[in-house]
């Protein structure tokens, strides 16, 4: 293969301007994924609906955040986008081409993952430098000296000191390991990075370092990103647009800034309130979510959020809401627009 990737030049002259260039690099249309859980002997198997008719897109140079609790299907979406999992229905296109028709090697070069726990995704017997060179070897990019050069440059770019290049993962801190994982993901100059909770295992001060690094790299390289997190505070920092998932559905999506200022879905509001800011005057927020837990094997009828919703009416129990456009955001809630002022929106 040729060496298009060897200069760390931005793909676009001005990555920020790129946001305005609304061509989707990655698009998912109506994807669904259901798993069958075996109930064991003599028991009925049950169905786990992880993702239910989700549509998403990521524009070039842009970050699309996905936020939601565990079990909401956000990691399944990540696996589907990475081609690690096949959706039961729906289609994913990468730059207009269906990913089902893209050869596996090419897909893995163009879409790269960064996972939560960098320790379990790094080979403990490979040095940092070898780790970053490895994908270049696998994809036969360039020759040995150029691979070495590129790996060193990347490691330098993610802020690892030269003396650590020959270290092994167990000699590094969590933040440094995540830096290695990011360098490795960037080695093949992918079109899109899929980051699944990349900072949840890190300390706050280190999380800030990694979030800043990710933003800097995106500005410099213009790579598009899907950024998955359960923390809206983190999402707000990195994402241009955000999709809020609940029980396999995108219940609210829109531009991050607007969505944070005017969250319309009751679930988005609860998520936003549950971000504990270090303000000693506030005390614990009252979420009004009730005692029931979301269970993807037993999805409630009507609006799937209604058992936990403080605003629910009889309509919510009977019919599933269609997405509605409000203030430029798409919201799946019967009551969207009529919830009254958000408690948080006034603090500012």
């Amino acid at each position, binding site marked *: 293969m040729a060496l298009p990737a060897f200069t760390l030049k931005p793909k676009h002259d001005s990555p920020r301007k790129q946001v305005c260039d609304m061509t989707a690099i990655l698009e998912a249309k109506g994807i669904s994924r259901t798993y069958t859980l075996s109930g064991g002997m003599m028991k009925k198997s049950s169905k786990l609906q992880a993702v239910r008719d989700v549509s998403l897109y990521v524009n070039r140079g842009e970050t699309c955040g996905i936020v939601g*609790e565990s079990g909401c299907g956000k990691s399944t979406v990540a696996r589907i986008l990475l081609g690690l999992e096949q959706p039961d229905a729906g289609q994913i296109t990468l730059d207009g081409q269906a990913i089902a028709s893209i050869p596996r090697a090419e897909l893995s070069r163009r879409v790269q993952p960064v996972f939560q726990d960098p320790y379990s995704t790094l080979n403990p017997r490979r040095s940092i430098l070898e780790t970053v060179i490895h994908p270049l070897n696998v994809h036969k990019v360039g020759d040995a000296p150029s691979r070495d050069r590129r790996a060193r440059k990347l490691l330098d770019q993610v802020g690892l000191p030269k003396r650590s290049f020959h270290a092994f993962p167990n000699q590094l801190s969590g933040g440094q390991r995540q830096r290695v994982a990011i360098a490795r993901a960037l080695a093949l100059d992918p079109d899109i990075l899929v980051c699944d909770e990349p900072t949840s295992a890190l300390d706050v*001060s*280190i*999380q800030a370092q990694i979030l800043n690094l990710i933003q800097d790299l995106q500005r410099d390289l213009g790579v598009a990103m899907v950024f998955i997190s359960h923390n809206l505070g983190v999402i707000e920092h990195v994402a241009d647009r955000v999709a809020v998932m609940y029980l396999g559905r995108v219940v609210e999506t829109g531009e991050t800034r607007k969505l944070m200022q005017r969250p319309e879905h009751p679930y988005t509001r609860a998520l936003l309130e549950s971000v504990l800011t270090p303000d*000693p005057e506030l005390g614990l927020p009252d979420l009004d979510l009730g005692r029931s837990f979301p269970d993807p094997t037993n999805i409630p009828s009507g609006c799937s959020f209604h058992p936990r919703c403080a605003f629910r009416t009889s309509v919510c129990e009977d019919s599933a809401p269609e997405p509605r456009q409000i203030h430029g955001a798409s919201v799946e809630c019967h009551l969207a627009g009529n919830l009254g002022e958000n408690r948080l929106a006034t*603090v500012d």
Partner: protein
Amino acid sequence: MTKLLDIKNLRVEIPIQGGAVHAVRGVDLSIDRGETLCIVGESGSGKSMSSLAVMNLLPKGAHRSADRMSFLGTDLLRLSHRGMARIRGDRIGMIFQEPMTSLNPAYTIGNQLQEVYRRHRRAGRAAARDRAIELLELVGIPNAPLRLRQYPHQLSGGLRQRVMIAMSLMCEPDILIADEPTSALDVTVQVQILHLLKDLQTKLGIAVILITHDLGVVARTADRVAVVYAGQILETGTARQVFGTPRHPYTARLLDSMPIPGMMRLRRKLQAIPGTVPSLTNDFQGCAFAARCDRARPECRTTEVPLVREDGHGFACLHPETEARFAQKAGV
């Protein structure tokens, strides 16, 4: 009134090849009945080691020492293993971050809950079962009799942590030590568990030592806070003192590095703290944070920095911060 738990100058050393890791270097802690004390710090700050030292659950080879370590007048340092085993799980309960690893996957929830009670209280099976059901209901787990027959893997993360809390409360302890109890949970579940801990505390009057790295959790739940770094307390006081007017630059920088919704409207970058936590193998001179501190001057690296107190607000810094944070907003 005597303190429930009173610790002076706690030290923990873990011998390693060619030296020792000084995980805890002279920590003073005390807690009263019904109080929430939060120990906050990053990984490697010695916050977990301090609590393990109290419970005498340190890893093999680790050595603890203190000028004083008394629990209700009992000297924990002199207590035999047997004596400690009687207190542990009975008078002092403990919960950990990952309930899956602290629950035994081979036994049912009921089995594990009842074991604590039967062992410490010499109760019969029926009494233990009743108590277990009572506790599961107390921590907000519906359908308790069914849950007793289930195994840990059949429960969600939030439920497992509730089970752990129930287990630690089986014998109505005086102190509950919670080591990162909500770090593995969803944000909404975290809020529920923290509410639960607060409710239980008011109901049962237990003291809670909450160990966490999350400043948000601390600010919203703590009566008193101790900010630890490299095995030392750098700042301590009420939550309002420590978060309203952080005096130690480490506390201030930690607050700056938190992503807070709304802050991004200013398109502000997160203020990361450069560098990493210092190695704990050698004894360092001066302030432990000096190497990463933007306010550090030469004397910070050479002179011993004592913890000075102003109105109960203690901080170990020669050039303290003075900027108030949330104080102005309090009136809103």
